Structure formats: C-alpha cells, structure tokens
C-alpha cells in the first residue's frame, strides 16, 4: 500500500516535471539585445510629423515567427551601432524590396503580379508580403507557410484573400463585383476545404491560389492569367482533374450564381426544384398537421 502510494506520488511528480520542462520557451535570436528596449510596450517616439508612434516589438510574436533566428539587423541594417541612427522605417512600399533581398524569386514574381504592379504605382490597397504571410500584418510575426496557423496555410488561404477580396466597397474600385469568397465557400472546393481537417494531407484541395496563382497572381482579365478564357481555365482545371477538357471548364459558374445569363439550365432547374420542393412539402405538412390534430383530438376526448 505504501509502495503504491509512493509510486503514485512519484508518477505525479514525474508527469508534472515533464509537463513543466516541456513548456520551455523558444527565444528569438537577439544578438544586439534590441528587445531590451524595444520589448517594452511603452516605448514610443515622436516622429517628424509630430505623431506619436510605437517602437514596441512584440517579443512573443517574434519568438514564434519564422525569422526568429535571424538577427534584427538583417532587416534593419542601419541600426548596428548604439545609440543607433534614427532612420525612416520600412513602409508598405519598401517592404517587398526588403524581403526580396533574400527571397529574390518570390520578389520577382510578386513585382510582375497584379499586386506588385499596383504597388509599384504607389497603390497602398494591394497585398504585399506581410499582408498574406503575417497574421497581424506585422513583419515581425511572419509564420512559415506550412504551419497550421499561418494565413498562407492551405486551409486559411481563402480567409486571407477574403480580408480584402470580400470587402465589396474596396473591390468595387477595381471592378471586381463577383462575391468571390462566398461563391468559393459555396463551391465543392470551398466545402471540402471548410469541412476538411487541418492535417497536412489537405494540401490537395483547391483554394484561390491553385487557380489564380500565388506570388505571380494576375488579374482575371489579363489574357495570361490561368483563369482567363476557356483554354487557360481548362488547363488549370486539368492540374487536378486529370483529363478535364473545355466542356468541363465550361461548367464553372465563374464565381457567380446561376442566372438566365450564366448557365441558364442550372438556374431554371433550381427554380423547378424549388417549386417542387415547396409544393410537395407544403402538401405533406398540411396532411401531417391535420392528422396530428385529429389524433390528438381523439385522444383528448377519450
């Protein structure tokens, strides 16, 4: 009995220690101790325009970010001497170039994409690196693509794109009137993605980037886009649907609902079935309600 008790206590201690020891935290590489000052949430400065801006770097986010083993000075090179130079921080416009100093291939593709072209024109609406790669839009918390909580993880991509592309007023500026996010989520691809798990095996399901491209994403009106025209679209379908042809691509509703102009047969079939459904089920409901009334009344009288 004593031994059993001892074993039990020992077991608890062992389990507890494993639990505590396992929760050891990961720390970002911070060779110049930047976080000593910048890890303080209170740290601010008044910039040239007289505006108060925060200089705080969330160490929690940095510790789990994909770049946690890269020194701060890799991206902020002018700050190697202390007290360091006060330099203009990275802006949305200059960020891609900074990321591109390492990620050259992606930078090149992005520059040629519709987002990159617009960015080069000084348009601040468009997506640049961190808008898709960081959950908070903060360059310090960029997460690797295959981590389940990354905005670029397969299951999360549609929501990431929806951040801008589900904003009807923003999209109206660019003539994108289709409810792309909603129609995707309604489609088989969206349902499979939504109902699928977070497992890595879910990578074979199609989301925005499978058809539209990733860093090299193009406007759907661009003739070089993988979704422009039935020929390109069929080739894109064929990447997953082996043997898909033009007719297969023609069955795509194009992010719109079926209507007299858009696959009219599907539209009229829907109306037909709605009528059938409503009439048959109303009839059934009436009969059942009348029967329930009679059976209850009989029961009540007895």
């Amino acid at each position, binding site marked *: 009995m004593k031994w059993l008790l001892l074993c039990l206590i020992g077991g608890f201690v062992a389990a507890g220690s494993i639990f505590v020891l396992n929760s050891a935290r990961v720390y970002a590489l911070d060779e110049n101790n930047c976080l000593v000052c910048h890890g303080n949430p209170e740290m601010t400065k008044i910039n040239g325009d007289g505006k108060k801006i925060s200089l705080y770097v969330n160490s929690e986010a940095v510790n789990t970010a994909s770049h946690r083993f890269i020194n701060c000075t890799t991206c902020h090179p002018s700050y190697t001497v202390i007290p360091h130079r006060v330099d203009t921080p990275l802006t949305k416009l200059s960020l891609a170039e900074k990321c591109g100093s390492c990620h050259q291939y992606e930078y090149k593709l992005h520059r040629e994409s519709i987002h990159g072209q617009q960015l080069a024109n000084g348009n601040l609406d468009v997506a640049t690196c961190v808008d898709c790669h960081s959950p908070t839009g903060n360059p310090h918390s960029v997460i690797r693509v295959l981590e389940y909580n990354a905005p670029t993880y397969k299951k999360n991509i549609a929501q990431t794109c929806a951040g801008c592309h589900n904003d009807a007023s923003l999209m109206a500026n660019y003539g994108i009137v289709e409810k792309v996010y909603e129609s995707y989520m309604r489609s088989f691809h969206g349902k499979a993605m939504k109902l699928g798990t977070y497992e890595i095996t879910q990578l074979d399901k199609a989301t925005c980037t499978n058809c539209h491209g990733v860093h090299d994403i193009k406007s759907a009106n661009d003739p070089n886009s993988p979704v422009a025209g039935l020929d390109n679209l069929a080739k894109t379908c064929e990447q997953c649907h082996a043997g898909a042809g033009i*007719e297969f691509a023609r069955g795509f509703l194009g992010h719109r609902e079926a209507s007299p102009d858009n696959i009219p047969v599907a539209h009229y079939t829907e109306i037909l079935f709605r009528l059938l459904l409503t009439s048959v*089920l109303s009839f059934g409901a009436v009969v059942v309600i009348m029967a329930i*009334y009679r059976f209850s009344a009989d029961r009540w009288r007895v």
Partner: protein
Amino acid sequence: MATRAETVYAGLVPEDTIARFDVHQIIQHIGLMVSFVLLVITGIPLKFHDWAISQAWIGMWGGIEVTRSIHYFGAWLMVGVGFYHLYYLWYSTAILKKPFPIKMIPSLSDFIKLFQELGYYVGLRKEMPRYDRFNWKEKFDYWALFWGVPVMAVSGFILMFPVFATRFLPGWVVPTALVAHSDEAMLALTWIVMVHIFFNHFTPGVFPMNTSIFTGRVPRERYRRDHPLEYDRLMGIPEVVDDEADNEGIDEKNDEGADETGQGNN
C-alpha cells in the same frame, strides 16, 4: 371457404398476423433504408457546410475523405437496390408469371380517398376511407422513389465523375446536377422524416414502431383497420361496395389470383 391466410400459413405462424411483404421486399426496404441513412448522414453536412456541427460531424468520421467514401458506398448500395427491385419486378411477372402489381398504380380513387382522409381529419367524416392493399401515402412513397432514385443516381454519377461526364455531355450538366442532387435530397429527406416516419410509426396503433416491413407480417386487427378492402378479400368476405370511393384498383383477378397479388407488389 378457406382463404389464403388460413391455408398457406395454418399452423406455421401465429394466427393473429397476416403476411404482407415477401423476403425480397423486406431486403429491398432494408437496403434502401440503410443506404438512405448513410447518404443523409454524409450528405447533409455538405449542404449545411458552414454550420459548426457539420464540421464537427465530419471530423468525427475522420474527415471529408471518409464521409465521401461512405457516401459513394451508400450511393452504389441504393442504385443496387433499385436494380434489384427492377429485376425482381421483371422476374416475378415475366418468369414466375405473377400478375402485374396493378394495385400500386395510382388511380382516381387515390385522389378521392385522399380528400376523404383529410375530411376525416377535420371531422367531416366519421371514418377513414377504406383502403385497398396500398393507400395513397404508400403509393406516393413508392412512386417518389421511381422519380427520386434516378434523379439522385444520374446527378450523383455526374458529380462523382465530372470529367468523364463532360466528355460526352455539355459543361452545364455539372452545376445543374449539383442543384438537382441537393434539392431532391432535401425533398426526399423532409418527406421521409415528416410524412413517412409520422404515418408509419407515430400514428395511434403503431407507435413507437411499425415492424411489418422487417418481419413481413402485420397484426390481423391492424390489417383489418388499415387495409380493409384487401383484408376482406383475403378473408373471403364479400366485397362491400364503397359508395363514394371508386374501387377500380380491384381487378377481376382477385378470385383466382389472391395469393399472387399479395406477393407481387412492393
């Protein structure tokens, strides 16, 4: 005069039940029921994909790949049952030379009896209409399958093999099949739950469950109550002419073919 129920089953079965379904009909119903349930539990979450419970439910089965496989299995099972029924129908009429199951064919009397039944429910009539072997609800269920199973099978086949289908058919068949499949499924499910389950299991006298489709046998008293015309014929009681209902469903074969007509229907 010895009736079918008395001669065929004398001493073999409890006397207070009457055979209504043969073993093929029982198997077909079980196959249909199992496949229907499998199809519903794996198909409904797709229709209501944005409900949290759908995601939890699919996760419970191990993900959408698993429920998709179950759905395919249920689909082939249901198609198999359909062909089984057609073969059974052909075999029993063409080979076994049983009379064609004419009592399942809808007639004017079904409409009359429908209104009589509704009249009974609201208190305009004292009694339920006197039904023959199949009442209008049973006929409706049966013929709904003749419409529903082909719709579901064809549209489901297109959705299962969209690339193959569009090799021969125009592209619009795929979105059209999806619409048809989804709406027809809702129609079938709602009808089964609301009408079929209610009238066959939840009505007085059969609650909580009517086991006749599984045992093939119906208690004598319930048979007399629910299918009085058929019951009287089985028992050799002279036919009471119903003044309001048109009994055209009863054909002249009854005298010599009562034992077959009882078997040849579903």
